[in-house]
């Protein structure tokens, strides 16, 4: 009997664990280690953040679901890895510290035969002075990264709406809180959901809404831009988002590295090296992501964190990490199997794997500040990678070490980004933007590295419905209700 330990219960970890448990049956054990008691469908948090959904609607308790699936669930956070075991044994193990289940604070060593690291990111609020401390949100801004944050954001938003109803104007500043953030899509959705809610509340004219982000152009989304179809025309996401911003009366700042947050004010540096300031009454700034800070030790107890993890804390996998200039980037640099090169029984999925380089064109200000989005690896790619990795591990367990590993390269994956621009069954709006492949393949598609023939969807109510249906579909799938397996990632 083999034991697979999955660290993290987000999109990647939950997908990997549930599929692995199903494929392995009761012959082998699947253990999930996650510090959270609830599963959260993160893309819907933006709706919680505007008070259109409750926290309960986007989360559910993991315990009963894992019981049903026959998964051992440990509500704990992983602290360190010993991929070679330690002095008292050869069996690799992970040290965890409980956060619940009545054992909070207690440590335990969990041995494993295979381990999937799907810890997701550490929300690195501490990277920007004033945005927060370490991984906790500061007092000046709000966030929609977790369901709790989103609920807090919606309360703050309601306070602003009340003030506006009393005749006080409010300034909203939404975007990214650092030069190296990803997940611009979430902030993009949030700004337009706020705009939509303010309109519904009849206070839109009292609000000044502004976007601030590290993208070199509006609509970059960390992927160097996407494209979409509007009324039969292929339109670049830059043109589309700029017209959406103009149409909704939202101004924007791009190419900005927010370097300080104070009460009611952010300071930032632009790509041209100039500095600026922006005031706000309400601000949602996405923090940069970092690895969760897992340590690794060898048999002798020496720190081998640098061997297993990249400097940013994400796990090294089968990618080509040789630093090279932008013009030499290749699709083949990107990982295919997500297996750690040193320890073959370690895998990473979702945000937890270290990407070889970014996707957008790298950019630096004359002062040397790096201002470019880091690669998004959330949502659909996360799910697909989680499933592929689970497949590989199951084959390794069942067929031995010579088993063929399953592949899911982001250079062969498309992404559809259904971005909500306002919730409502009759007046909701969403934009569907696509890109194929996520990581440009300059050899296959000379020039942009992308297949621009590949488009899908338009802005409008139908887009919103898809987004809303996806919410129910994925909540249903994650709860492992009947036929969950036929719902794609």
């Amino acid at each position, binding site marked *: 009997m083999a034991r697979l330990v999955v660290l993290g219960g987000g999109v990647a970890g939950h997908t990997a664990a549930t599929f692995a448990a199903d494929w392995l049956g009761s012959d082998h054990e699947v253990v999930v280690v996650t510090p959270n008691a609830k599963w959260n469908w993160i893309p819907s948090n933006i709706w919680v953040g505007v008070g259109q959904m409750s926290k309960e609607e986007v989360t559910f308790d993991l315990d009963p679901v894992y019981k049903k699936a026959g998964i051992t669930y440990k509500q704990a956070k992983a602290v360190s890895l010993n991929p070679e075991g330690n002095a008292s044994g050869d069996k690799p193990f992970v040290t965890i510290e409980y956060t619940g289940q009545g054992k909070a604070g207690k440590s335990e060593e969990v041995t494993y035969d295979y381990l999937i690291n799907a810890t997701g990111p550490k929300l690195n609020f501490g990277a920007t002075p004033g945005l927060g401390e370490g991984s906790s949100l500061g007092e000046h801004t709000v966030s929609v990264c977790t369901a709790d944050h989103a609920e807090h954001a919606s309360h703050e938003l309601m306070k602003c709406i009340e003030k506006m109803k009393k005749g006080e104007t409010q300034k909203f500043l939404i975007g990214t809180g650092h030069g190296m953030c990803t997940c611009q899509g979430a902030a993009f959705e949030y700004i337009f959901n706020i705009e939509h809610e303010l309109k519904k509340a009849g206070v839109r004219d009292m609000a000044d809404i502004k976007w601030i982000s590290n993208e*070199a*152009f509006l609509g970059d989304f960390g992927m*160097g*831009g996407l*494209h979409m*179809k509007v009324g*039969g*025309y*292929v*339109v*670049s996401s*830059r*043109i589309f988002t700029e*017209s959406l911003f*103009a149409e909704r009366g939202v101004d924007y*700042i*791009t*190419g900005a590295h927010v370097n300080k947050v104070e009460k009611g004010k952010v300071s930032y540096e*632009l*790509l*041209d*090296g*100039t500095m600026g300031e922006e005031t706000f009454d309400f601000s949602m700034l996405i923090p940069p992501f970092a690895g969760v800070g897992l340590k690794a030790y060898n048999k002798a107890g020496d720190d081998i964190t640098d061997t297993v993890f990249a400097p940013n804390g994400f796990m090294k996998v089968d990618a080509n990490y040789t630093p090279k200039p*932008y*013009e030499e980037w290749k699709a083949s640099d990107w990982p295919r199997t997500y297996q750690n090169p040193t320890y073959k029984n370690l895998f990473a999925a979702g945000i937890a794997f270290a990407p070889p380089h970014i996707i957008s*064109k790298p*950019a*630096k200000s*004359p002062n040397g500040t790096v201002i470019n989005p880091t690669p998004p690896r959330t949502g*659909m790619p996360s799910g*697909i990678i989680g499933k592929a990795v689970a497949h590989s591990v199951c084959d390794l367990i069942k067929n031995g070490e010579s088993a063929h590993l399953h592949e899911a390269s982001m250079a*062969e*994956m*498309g*992404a*559809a980004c259904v971005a909500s621009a306002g919730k409502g069954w009759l007046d909701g709006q969403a934009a569907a933007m*696509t890109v*194929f492949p996520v990581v440009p393949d*300059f050899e296959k598609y000379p*020039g*942009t*590295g992308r297949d*621009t*023939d*590949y*488009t*899908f*969807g338009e802005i409008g109510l139908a887009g919103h419905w*898809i987004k809303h*249906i*996806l919410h129910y*579909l994925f909540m249903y799938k994650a709860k492992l209700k009947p036929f969950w397996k036929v*719902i*794609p*990632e």
Partner: protein
Amino acid sequence: MIQPLIQYPNPAIRLISANVRFFNDELTQWITDIRDTMIANDLDALSAILIGIQQSIIVIKEGENYIPYINARLIKHSDVQTQTERSIYYPGISADVDRYDKVTVVYEDENATPCYRDLEGEAARIFQQHFDYCFGSTFVDRVDRDMKQRIHDHLEFGLVKDGGSCPTIFYRDYFKRGARYLILGIAATFLVPFFASGQIQEWTYLMDKYLIVGALLLMIGYFFYAQYESQQYKQCTSCQTGNIIGTLALLMGQLAVVALGVFLWVAP
């Protein structure tokens, strides 16, 4: 070398330009071609895509100099102004377009050195116009819907659709269409009992039964082919699956209705 200008209705205008990655002789040649074409056509600015090169290069004439803006990005903007604009791509058409009067541009020169420039007035407008060409767009995307429609009506072939084929057209739709025609055919035979009876009605009934089986087979074919086709693309399989199931349910419903009709009405 002077190159022919891309003009309406050439669909290449819809291509999104790639970032220049190699600063080599080829790039120098492109810049020379753009400059030569500008001189020949007496232009103040030109995007590479307008001579068919899908690369993010804009050359702007300043005095006697031709300055290349490579991989340009627009960083700061202020003061929106409305002015009548013409486009090299749509000769003979002009429209009022909102543009920023002051912009800050970051770009690379021909040696890949990052540069920063503040542009104002006409220079800012010209830059924004050509920056849009780099993103597969013309001023038509910057005007309101009414104006867009007026331009569309004015143009001989209407506005330019996308540059390439795109898989919003799926082959599975042939199955769907086939099944629809058969269902329609069956529905048409509902008229038969009004005019004929006996042998003809029996033949019609027999034919309908074959048509029902045929439509059913087409639907099964649709389902499996659609599944196969949707797997060709590794994206948005959820939406496609939803679409396939929805389409199939609709077809099934239609077939069930006509089949009921056949057995209750057409059957002798």
